[in-house]
């Protein structure tokens, strides 16, 4: 029979939580390495470090992720996250300066990043593997990268 006590008991009982959803409110990132970007069959340029910050123009509803703490032998869990960022390529400074090119290459671009991450065994951090989709409107549109 359902009683007030039974309902209160249900509320108090704690189910083990293995999955936690979260939203991304702020983000700042700097890549460790440069990316080679092809310009022709023979020539390419270095992007330099890529600097990303959360995209203030994007809908916050899209910045969301889930951590799965299910025990695994190889890691402390998995994490999937999708977020919108604006990125700049400060490494293009030399290219633009040397050729007196239009500085619009420095302008930020909008990107949606999707990462699949592996939590470290002690759950103090994670290793991310993701892909970037450049949004329409800029010369980078349609480009993808990981």
């Amino acid at each position, binding site marked *: 029979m359902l009683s007030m006590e039974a309902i209160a008991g249900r509320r108090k009982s704690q189910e083990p939580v293995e999955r936690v959803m979260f939203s991304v409110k702020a983000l700042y990132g700097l890549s460790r390495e440069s990316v080679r970007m092809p310009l022709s069959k023979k020539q390419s340029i270095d992007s330099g470090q890529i600097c990303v910050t959360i995209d203030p123009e994007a809908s916050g509803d899209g910045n969301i992720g889930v951590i799965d703490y299910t025990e695994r032998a190889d890691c402390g869990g998995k994490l999937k996250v999708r977020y919108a960022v604006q990125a700049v390529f400060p490494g293009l400074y030399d290219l633009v300066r040397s050729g007196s*090119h239009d500085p*619009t*290459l420095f302008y*930020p671009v909008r990107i949606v990043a999707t990462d699949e991450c592996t939590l470290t065994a002690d759950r103090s951090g994670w290793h991310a593997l993701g892909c970037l989709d450049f949004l329409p409107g800029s010369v980078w549109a349609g480009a993808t990268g990981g």
Partner: protein
Amino acid sequence: MLPYLTARAPWFTFLVHPRDPSDLMLAGVGSVLREYSEGEEDFQRKSCSLPPLVVGEVAVGSNAVRGELVVAMCLPRDIMSRAGQRAVIAAAQMSAQRGTRVLGLGALASPATGGGALLLDELPPSVTVTNGNAYTAAVAKHNVVEACAILQHTPPTCRVAVVGCTGSVGVATSKLLADAGFDLLLVGRSASRARTLLGSLADRATFAGDLAAVRGAEIVLLLTSDPSAKLVPEMVSAGAIVIDVAQPLNIAPEHRGAFRRRGIDVVQGGIVEIPGYRCSYEMNMPARGAFACMAETYLFAREGIREHSVGRPGAEFALHLERLARKHGVAPMALDITRPQGLAPQLVAAGS
């Protein structure tokens, strides 16, 4: 704020394309692509492989109506092909994804898509399409009336050649000019087609399929830049005024000198002034000037017009847009002609 960075949906989008290879340099990345290209052909190929770009923002005073300028990276020589059509459609769909309410077509984006009709199946119903030709027709007629006054003529005695009379601007313009009482010479690719489309004007117009027929006209109105309709100075009578409304221009600015030396004024028409108009992208326009087709796109957004204007607009709709333009302070820009006051040029036979 860079235009492509904002997530605010524009009220309207004006879709254009590079008018010639020099416009490719305006894409920002142009000089880099040129440096890393093997010759001009490779540069053009790379530039035209770029996706559609949001290159500028249009604002009108403190009005909330805000627009964007989107470029389909396709040169005029290719835009009438299937690839060109696809480039225009891709740019239109990107504009729709950005939330635009009104899509206006500049230069050859309209003829490449059947006057905009082909876009209707490619876009969501929330987007209204206008090819901008109705208000362009009204402004072209206004340009002719102004040129007639400069020549100190009155419509019944002023012979006006309309080159491109069967096009989507040409049909409405021809009817407006006929209503204004001008003596018309209507030039199309074929005289019979012109007669079929504009037969109701037969009592006020003669029809021709040959560009050479413009000789003797006091005013030549160019509404097409088709290679078969390229005007050369020898075709035009000295003292005439040529109004070039075509985009790309029928007569490139560097060729105007040859006309001038024969006493022929060549001016760009189809340009209007919009109070408080600002565009963050340099389109090599006269100061404060905007294309009439861009102004029509703005008027659609401002007035909340939800009916498409594709194909050939009617003269009545052109007049309706002219009234709306007046209501919002949009007016044709004066022709850039300076002739001595009181000196009416003598019209002499070309070649003399």
